[in-house]
Every structure is written in structure tokens, then in C-alpha cells.
């Protein structure tokens, strides 16, 4: 899990911080704890309706607040709690569902979006942190019926089966080509190292990669 997504507020040493909760409480646990947090009788956010105590830094939340995100060139506003990840904000509050929730802890890449031109795991960052930065999802890679070359290659070479991981792969691959106009197939593959497909579409993805790199794959 990426530590850089930790909120700036200092932890108070208790289960809650000045905002009424800590990252540990809202991020979906680690290891077995993922199941355990929902199962055990861990003290619940008693402070979920409480006001910040005297002397603590006032911050957003824990109640929902207004948040505006710039998604695919469009300003979108919603009310969310500060603990909501960028992924959940997009999917649950803004109905932008091309980014998928699969592992929800930064291992599979299905939630990949471009933030400020860089591919990020939207499950591992708060929506708050994405304010004011352009966010692009797979939905941006088509104009009318005209597909961007990356999803077009996925379609032509059949580099998707169930398709649930596909938008994440497409965004990650698009990011490679935006950073390097003429990457080698190996460089493109490196850019996809953070994405996992269960149906096993990698072989067809390689056909798409070679075509996008203008290289012949097999004799």
C-alpha cells in the first residue's frame, strides 16, 4: 500500500484523529484483517457524529462535505465523507464506472485512472487528494464511435474477455504511450506490470502491443 496517500493530519494515538477517524479505519484492512475488521467487535467510530475536540486541527468531516472533481474534462460535484477513496467517489457518487473495484488495495490495477497525466490506483488515494487535478478514465478514450488507438487495438486483437480488468489495462497502456511516443513492446509491458487479468488475455494483449508499437510479433 502506498504510504504517500496517508492524510496529512497527525494521528492522535487513539483509533480516531482530529477528523473523527483514521486512515486505518476506512482503508480496507490488511491481510486477514480485511475480513476481521468487518467481523470483530472493533470499537466503532464512536466519534462518527462528534465534533472536533478543543485544540485539535479542524478538518473536513467526518460528515459528508462538498467535493468537486474534474473528470474527463467535466466538473462533477458531490457530497462525500473525507474517507471516500477516489475510486469509490467516481463509482458510487459520480457514476463513472469504467474504473473497477477488484482488489481495493493497490495490487490489481483494475481501478487505474490518469491523474494529472499519470496512472494511479484510484483505490489507494482519497478523493480529497484528487481535487483540482484532471482525472481521466477509460471512458475518455472514445469520441462518438471513434476509438482511441489503444482501445481500438484491444478490440481488434481481442485483448479482453470478461473485460472487467480491461479499462484499467487500457488506461495504463495509454499512459505509457503518452509518456513515450515510441516505446518498445517490453517498455509497454513494464507499464502494465501493475495490472492483473484473470481470464488470461495477455497473449492477445501482446498482439495489440506489437501492433501499437508498429512491430511484427511472429514470423
Amino acid at each position: 500500500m502506498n504510504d504517500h496517500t496517508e492524510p496529512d493530519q497527525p494521528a492522535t494515538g487513539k483509533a480516531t484523529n482530529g477528523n473523527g477517524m483514521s486512515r486505518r479505519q476506512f482503508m480496507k484492512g490488511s491481510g486477514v484483517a480485511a475480513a476481521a475488521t468487518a467481523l470483530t467487535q472493533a470499537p466503532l467510530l464512536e466519534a462518527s457524529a462528534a465534533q472536533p475536540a478543543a485544540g485539535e486541527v479542524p478538518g473536513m468531516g467526518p460528515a459528508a462535505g462538498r467535493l468537486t472533481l474534474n473528470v474527463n474534462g467535466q466538473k462533477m460535484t458531490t457530497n462525500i465523507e473525507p474517507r471516500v477513496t477516489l475510486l469509490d467517489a467516481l463509482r458510487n457518487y459520480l457514476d463513472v464506472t469504467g474504473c473497477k473495484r477488484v482488489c481495493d488495495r493497490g495490487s490489481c490495477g483494475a481501478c487505474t485512472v490518469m491523474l494529472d497525466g499519470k496512472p494511479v490506483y484510484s483505490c489507494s488515494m482519497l478523493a480529497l487528494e484528487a481535487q483540482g487535478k484532471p482525472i481521466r478514465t477509460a471512458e475518455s478514450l472514445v469520441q462518438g464511435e471513434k476509438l482511441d488507438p489503444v482501445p481500438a487495438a484491444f478490440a481488434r486483437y481481442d485483448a479482453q474477455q470478461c473485460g472487467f480488468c480491461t479499462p484499467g489495462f487500457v488506461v495504463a497502456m495509454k499512459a505509457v504511450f503518452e509518456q513515450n511516443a515510441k516505446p518498445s513492446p517490453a517498455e509497454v509491458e513494464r507499464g502494465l506490470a501493475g495490472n492483473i487479468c484473470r481470464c488470461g488475455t495477455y497473449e492477445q494483449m501482446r498482439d495489440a502491443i506489437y501492433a501499437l508499437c508498429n512491430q511484427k510479433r511472429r514470423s
Partner: protein
Amino acid sequence: MPWPSKRRVIGTKVPRLDAPVKATGRAKYSFDINRPGMLHARIVRCPHAHARVKSIDTAAAEKIPGFRAFHLLVKPGVELLFAGAEIIAVCADTEEHCEDVARAVRVAYEVLPHLVKEEDALRPNQQGTLGGNDPNVGPGGEFATANFDAQAFQNVAHTVEARYGVPVICHQCLESHGQVAEWDKDLANLTVYASTQAVPLVAGQYAQYFKIPVTRVKCITHYMGGGFGSKFNPGPEGLAVAELARKTRAPVKLMLDRAEEVTVGGQRPSAAGTVKIAATKDGVVRAYEVDCYGSPGVGRGATVNMQYLPYVYSHIPFIKRKHRVVRLNIQTARAMRAPGHPQNCYLTDQALDDLAARFNPPIDTLQFRLRNLPPNDPDAAKNAPLSYLALRHTIYTREIEIARKLSQWDKKWHAPGADKGVVKRGIGMALHTWGGGGGVNNDVRVTISADGSVLCQCSTQDLGTAERTVLAIVVAEVLGLEPRDITVQIGESPFGRSTPSGGSTTCPGTAPAALNAANAARDAFFRAIAPRLNAQPGDLVIEPGRVVNRGNNEGMPWRQACARLGQNTSVGTGDWTPGLSLQGVGGVQTAEVAVDTETGVVRCTKIVAVQDCGLVINKLGCESQTAGGVIMGLNYALFEEAIFDRTTGRQVNPNMEFYKLGGIQDMPDIVVHMMDMPERGVIGIGEPPTIATCAAVGNAVFNAIGVRVPNAPFTPDRVLAALASRKGNR
């Protein structure tokens, strides 16, 4: 009507029709459905591998902001048999509040003893951990050919007795199990957006559960994110979400999170045991004996296919098999892509190569297989000349020859362990078989409209198999159009009957139905327009993009002909009929690996998969399915394992960072060869290509390092342990 003898579209490479919407994130899966006013639900689960529920206290949870409703799934006093068992479903206005509510539910447990390791359960006098007097270990079947003990191992030149095993793995569907449920205002009609492999079946299960007519349940699965045999019913979560939707009179979504998906979303059972195999001095296998066990978790039933052990080589004269079912405190097994077959293949093909290596010099394992292939069955050849039994020797011989060339086998194979250097290369092979036939109860409806558009409807679902495109290809073939000209609507239960997508039966079930429906629609169309063309319906024929009157050899473009329908449409319906599909395929795979003997890391460099599936409908889709099956098999060989902690009884890797799945950089070069046998009709391809891969990789590792790594996955620790155990280090 048979399949057209000249095929213009069928068998070509057609990109899937829904690829653009999938690749740009516009396809709406069940997980993506957001309904106005929708609430969220999740399930509180037992954290103990075996426990009795003492009490469930929801008082604190009910005070959480956003709380809406509960649905109790068990009552206090009940004994729960695995970590993850359902207790209570909770519902709130947002997902965040829902997590708060779930966390605030207080459940008290009496923790009871558990077992999560096969070897622990197999200890003598082990106390049962399944409640009551239910033992953990039970019989799974026994069989022996006549005179096995007296004669099996007589006159044999070489015998191998060794242990082999494959672990419990998890389905890991990327779209987890779950539903969005919504009742109408008077609670009479239920709509469910379900991630399922069985759209009409699930609608029926909801109707039965709520005791309402099935006509009042609509199950929708336009897109679904992965199903390998674990999504045939609503599950406790699916029934709970519909209960909560009824209680709250609002749409409710409940999708399992990743830890839940892994720990309760389905597992492929383990299989391990001792194999004793022997051959005569001519290299002909004479006897195969297996004593194995496996765990279906808390489920019941064998974890191998007893009748197919030994696998493929069922003609071996002396066979003895015994299986024990080891029930453990983990989730129950669910059918997973060719249930039982990868285990069978592993318990057969590994032993075969170990036996070939006993000869001096070692026998080339490709030649060893050719020498021991099952013969074509003479009775089947008379009664069912196109059947697998009638053709198996022919099919495997042809496929092995193709694989030999594509893998450069003769250049690559060497005596086991003969490669020099630190990184040793090796090549291995394995064979598989599968059914994959279609059947009745697949309703397809084709409608031709006056504007020339064509609609094809079926309630079936697309698991990633390009099923939409299959239907479009067949209809386009009959009507002289292109697949993109056909609007295909699937995944809605009101479209009629369709069979669940299990056993590789969807394409062979629906493609014949689509052929019959398209033929019927075309005939109705000809009957409707013939009078307006001063023709007899029998004089009209379809040519690509045109309708031609053979009476005067005049033709007109498709749309112009359709315009003659005026206010009418022409509709044809069809179901599966015999003679258009078949079952029974063979497949041959080779794997090449490079094993670093210092680190134990196995890298697979190339896999050749030669697969028959009768009449190929979409060559592109078939190749994708085959490569995908190979990759799932490669994960089984190198990465996947559900690991359970003996002390807590919990799975320690219910996620995607410690439950390993390969990424693109882990992938070998995969060469797929579809062996077209159109005379056999359509046969399903979903399952077979995943069967042999693990066994082929295991044999390649053996070929590389000259010592067997008995248990998959072939992780560095296991490879190093095998190397260390070898006597007389080379």
C-alpha cells in the same frame, strides 16, 4: 438444417462486438449498476474457522447514521463451519455507513476446534471438527480391475511409486459475486442485476425463494466480470440483498469485497496422493494405481473424477484407484473450469514422465505418449464414428504431431536433468479431454425488420466467451450479412430459456439454436416478400448482402428486399437440435521452462496448445479462450495457492498481493493451434485448454532439473527443496 457447407463468416476471425464498450469502460456490469436512491449492503461474517454463535447484538449498529435494515442469516445457537460463514446482512445509505454498521454488530462466539490442513485431518484418531459425529475423512470411491493385486505388476520392467499434489485454489473472479436488487412499488415484481453464469436459472431461484411467479422476476446480466463455475445461483448474499430491498423498498447493492470473494466465492479442491505406475520392457504402461485424497472444504464429494483416473489413458489394462474425501473447515468447493480434470491430469501425466525416465536410456516422453495412446474404440467407430471414443487415437496422434513441430520438440527434449549450467531448460507435455456438448432449452429469436435491421435475442450470458459475437456470426452467415449488422441482446431472463454456462456447453447449445432461428426467420421473410416479388418463396435465396430470385436471376440489395415487408417483421425462433453439435475433445500442450537452480525460480518461456473443438464458430474467440485457459493453468502451476493458517483457521492470502496471479511479464510465448474438425459440429472450448497446462509445466520442470517437484505450485522453495533432496548432486 445442417451447418452451411460453404461458410463465409463462420470460422473466420471476428473481433467481439462488445469489445469497444468493454475497452472504454462503458459496459455496465452488475457491479456498476447505480439505481436512483440505491442503498448498500454487506454481510457480517464469522471470523472463526469453527464456532457456535452465542448471540447477535445489533443495538449499537442500529444507531449508526445511515442505518436502514438488517437481514439475519443465522440464528444464535447455530454452528458455523468455516471462517467467512454468513451471519447477518446489513444495509445503509452509503457504502461507508454500511461498513460502520457492519463493524458495530456484536456477535459472541463459542470457538470450537477446527482443521484446515489435509494432513492434520488424516492423522489417526483425529477428532471431527464438523459438528456432531460427522468425521472429517470419508470414502470417495474405490475401484480395481480384475486380478489387479495378483497380476498388475507382473512382467513389468520398471515401476515408479511417488507422491504428487495440487492445492486448493480460489476462483478469484475479478467482478465479485453480488447483485443489485430492486422491487417495484407494490413489491410484486423483482429486478435483479446479477453477476451470474445462469440468467434464467437465477430468476427461477429468486421466484422460488420469494414464492412469486417466475414471470415477475427479471434477472439481468448484460456483462459479467468473470465466472469459472462459481456463479450458478444467487447465493446467501443474493437472497439477502433482495430481502433487504424488500424491507427498505429501495434498490440495494451487495457485491462481495475481495477478501469475501476469495474466502467464500468458490474454491477448486485439492488433490494429492500416491501413484504407482509400471511399464513392460517395450515401454507399454501395464498398471496404474492411485491412492489419493482431496478437500472440498466443508462440502462433500470427491475432488478428482474417479472414472477418469488414469486420465486419457483409460485403456491401461490394470487399474486400481482409491479416493478419500477430506472435509476441512474452509469454504465449500465449487465447480471450477473443468472440475476434477486438472487434478486427474496432474496425477496421471506426472507419473507417466517419471516412468519414462526410468528406462535406460530414458524414453522421449512424446514418443512414450504416442506408444501409450488409447486406441480408437472399434464399437464407437461403428455406432458413433465422429465421437471422441471413435477418434481419440487419431485426434491425439494428429495433435501431438502438430505440437511436436510448433514446439520444436525434437530439438528441445533431452534426458531429464541433462541441461548444463545454472539455469536449466526443459520441455514437457500433457494431454487432456473434455465433453463440451450442447443441449435443448436454448431459445433464440431472430427478428428481421423492414429497415433491414436484424435483432437476435437469447437469455444466455457472456462470461467473456464472446457469446454475443457467436450469435451474431451464425445469424449473419444465414442472412448474408456481417456480424456487426446484427443487434444481439442477451442476458435478460424474459428472453426465454437458456442453459447455464457450465461444462463448455454455451456455444454448442446456442449456436445451433441461432442457426435454426435464423433459418426460420429467413424462411418467414421469404414467405412474406415472395408475393410482392412475383416469386415463389422457394425461388428466393440469400447471397452476401442480397436476396436473389432464382426464377429470373434478378436480385436486390438486402435492405431493399426488407423494405417489401412494409409494416411487418419476420420472426424466427429456434432451439438446439441434434446433429449440429457434439461433445468430446482432445488437447495436447507442451511447455518449456527455464529453472534457475540457484534461486529456484521457474520461468515458463513457451507453451504450445493444440486444441480441437469441432466446427470453429469464431476463430479469434476460440484462440483467446484457449490462450486464456493456458494462462489459468500456468497460474495453477506457478503461482496459485489458498494458504490457511493452522492456528486461526483463516486463509492468510484472501487478496491479490499474496494470492499470486501472473502478470503480463510472467507470461510465456503462447502458440495456439485450433485443429478444425467441422464435420463434428460445434463443441465447447471454455474448459479443456486449462486442464493440461499445469501437468505440462510440471513435466518441463522435471525435464529441466531431473528431479520431480511433487507439489504445485512450483514455487522457488519447493524447487530448491526438490533439488536438495536429490541424491548424488550432479
